[in-house]
């Protein structure tokens, strides 16, 4: 990058120098413009090393401003004008704006339902999305159907935007299926539990898109914690080197289970990308309009050969990491209240009401729809039965495999030894997510435990 020093802000959609263009404060390009302390500092290092052969001066990271953030709607619902990002959401009709509101309300409501299902013993685990609705709906609704999402396990809002049905959400968390949907139906990969691994998959997919001469975009969703993983850093190296049409969408929700973001990054996360040669944006992740504008900018860059963009959506995980977590053990007092005041849905509702786009009747209709979707999720979840025992061997390989064939044959014969056949033996030998320990311990041949057969 230093060979191509430019006086403009390389990633800026209006092409102005960063320091002459305060509206563009969300952008961070690191090395490209004259204001870059990196370029100057490197020059100093070179001089010092050749002339003085003494202690090299350190690059002073703190001199780079890093906390600026694109925001179009304030926490109280006031619209902030921004000539750079406004045009990217100017085309939204009142119906579309109401749609964003509805999406967020539905996602929050179904998320609450899933949490309740876990508390009632119907799900093994649930990672709530509460608080991150704007980050996920704003970006998810910016995508085209042929774009491809590689997400972590908390992107229920994105999945909803992709067309994942309520009935497809819970099977994995109930433990009855390895996946909830066919990735190619909705162009969203199986959610990733290994932190950050999916960022590389997104880059590889984007390289494939590039080879195909297509203009689809891959988008990787991950959190602040993931930015410490080697995979995410390798993904940025690959994306930059091959100028892959990919978006790194980081939801900085302030916490990686109990670890605050300060343990992952000493500077804003968005500042890391320019060092890889990837322009980045820092956006208010609780502002659905700002997120949509930022995502559209990044999508446009990727579609037109501009390569990767990194978006840091600053948001907050208002719930626990998962239903197994207890945030009261680590969350500072008052922090939740502080963020509740920046709630993504409340602020958007205030903005829409003020603009005359949202009224009580529509809000009531949305609440009713959200209840209906939540009920659909609950009904489908409770209706899920444990899979047949022998499906444990399905799809390990795409082609016939003698190791698996032998084990399947052997277990089939074993199950056949029981009078009641496969179902009872499976219940007696395998502890399902909802069966009690007693059911799991039932001796072969004994009457199956009621909990086991009912689920």
């Amino acid at each position, binding site marked *: 990058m230093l060979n191509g020093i430019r006086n403009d802000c390389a990633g800026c959609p209006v092409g102005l120098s960063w320091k002459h263009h305060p509206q563009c404060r969300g952008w961070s390009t690191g090395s490209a413009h004259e204001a870059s302390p990196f370029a100057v500092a490197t020059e100093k290092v070179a001089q010092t090393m050749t002339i003085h052969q003494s202690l090299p001066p350190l690059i002073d990271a703190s001199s780079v401003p890093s906390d600026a953030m694109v925001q179009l709607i304030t926490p109280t619902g006031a619209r902030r004008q921004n000539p750079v990002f406004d045009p990217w959401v100017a085309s939204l009709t009142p119906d579309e704006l109401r749609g964003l509101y509805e999406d967020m309300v539905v996602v929050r409501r179904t998320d609450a339902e899933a949490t309740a299902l876990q508390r009632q013993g119907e799900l093994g685990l649930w990672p709530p999305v509460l608080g991150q609705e704007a980050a996920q709906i704003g970006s998810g609704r910016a995508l085209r159907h042929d774009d491809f999402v590689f997400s972590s396990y908390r992107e229920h809002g994105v999945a909803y935007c992709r067309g994942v049905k309520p009935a497809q959400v819970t099977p994995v968390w109930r433990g009855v299926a390895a996946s909830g949907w066919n990735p190619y139906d909705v162009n969203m990969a199986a959610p990733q539990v290994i932190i950050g*691994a999916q960022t590389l*998959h997104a*880059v590889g997919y984007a390289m494939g898109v590039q080879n195909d001469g297509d203009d689809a975009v891959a988008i990787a969703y991950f959190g602040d914690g993931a930015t410490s993983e080697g995979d995410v850093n390798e993904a940025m*190296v690959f994306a930059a*080197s091959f100028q892959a049409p990919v978006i790194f969408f980081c939801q900085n929700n302030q916490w990686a289970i109990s670890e605050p973001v300060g343990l992952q990054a000493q500077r804003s996360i968005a500042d890391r990308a320019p060092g890889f040669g990837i322009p980045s944006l820092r956006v208010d992740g609780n502002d659905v309009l700002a997120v949509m504008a930022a995502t559209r900018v990044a999508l446009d860059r990727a579609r037109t050969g501009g390569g990767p963009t990194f978006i840091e959506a600053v948001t907050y995980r208002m719930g626990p990491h998962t239903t197994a977590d207890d945030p009261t053990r680590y969350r500072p007092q008052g922090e939740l209240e502080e963020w509740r005041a920046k709630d993504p849905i409340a602020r958007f509702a205030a903005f829409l009401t003020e603009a005359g786009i949202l009224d009580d009747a529509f809000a009531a209709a949305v609440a009713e729809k959200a209840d209906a979707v939540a009920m659909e999720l609950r009904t489908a979840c409770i209706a899920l039965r444990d899979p047949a025992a022998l499906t444990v061997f399905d*799809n*390990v390989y*795409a082609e016939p495999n003698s190791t698996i064939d032998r084990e399947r044959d052997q277990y089939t014969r074993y199950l056949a030894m029981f009078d009641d056949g496969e179902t009872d033996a499976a219940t007696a030998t395998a502890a399902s997510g909802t069966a009690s320990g007693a059911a799991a311990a039932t001796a072969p041949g004994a009457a199956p435990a009621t909990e086991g057969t009912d689920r």
Partner: protein
Amino acid sequence: MTMLDAPVDTQTLTLANAINAGLRRALHDDDKVVLLGEDIGTLGGVYRVTDGLQREFGARRVVDTPLAEAGILGTAVGLAYRGYRPVCEIQFDGFIYPAFDQIVAQVAKLHYRTQGAVRMPITIRVPFGGGIGAAEHHSESPEAYFTHTSGLRVVAVSNPQDAYTMIRQAIASDDPVLYFEPKRRYHQKAPVELDGSLSLTEPMGSARVVVPGDDVTLLAYGPLVQTATDAARAATADGISVEVIDLRSLAPVDYATIEASVRRTGRLVIAHEAGSQGGVGGEIAASVTERCFSYLEHAPVRVTGFDVPYPPSRLEVHHLPGLDRILDGVDRALGRSNSLSELEAGW
């Protein structure tokens, strides 16, 4: 076979060149095949296995990647999601560990996790094994980490013909395949039939009887197939008939071929460079014992590298099972005088 009666489609190639020919054929036959690796393009690979392929197929299909093994495998996963058939080169056996998570948690599991919706037809080429006087991390045999991982297939080639055929089979497979290349045999030459249709070849999972025999079954794979063959020849001088089987596929294992042999000989020796603990030999010994216990005249015998970190190269002659150590293992299986005779008598 002499050159006179060789068919026109047969060429004498080194093992490395045979892999190169197989890769070229796969790139030619299927435009979804892409090669990823460090130094595989301009340089043609540190062992020149991919020599000339980037020039022929372009930098988008033969990709010099950044130096990041997890990055190579992780982007291969994304390419497979997109419908490609990536062939990844891990430059040396000892460099595969940074890619371990992507291989065992992603590549191996995605077909299962997506209930068959997403296929991972990824081939991972790994030059492996010692015997070349290399620096540390350049002589390892990490195959057991992968044979232990469900969802992966693992093969090791021993000769130019198999190298050519099996790289094509690995790439054509809809399952991920670890393809281990015996780097100390890269320059071994043999005639290779280049035009064979894949549908006419034996399945990739099959073992092959290299030398027929009656007294002892000797299993080997990769670099030790040649050593085992030499041992069988030497044993003939002592009047011992050794059947040498090239395992070829380490996961799954072709137990039908092994069992048929052991039921005749009653004695089994397994040789590999990797250490014995948790290794391929132990698994086969256990399985053969389970499956044909009553046919066995002696406990299965393993002849392996020691359970030590790969030693400095001036010690590898002791570490690697050579012809004499394999013959000693044959003697043990036969209950003849051997390195353990006194020890066993003492018990």
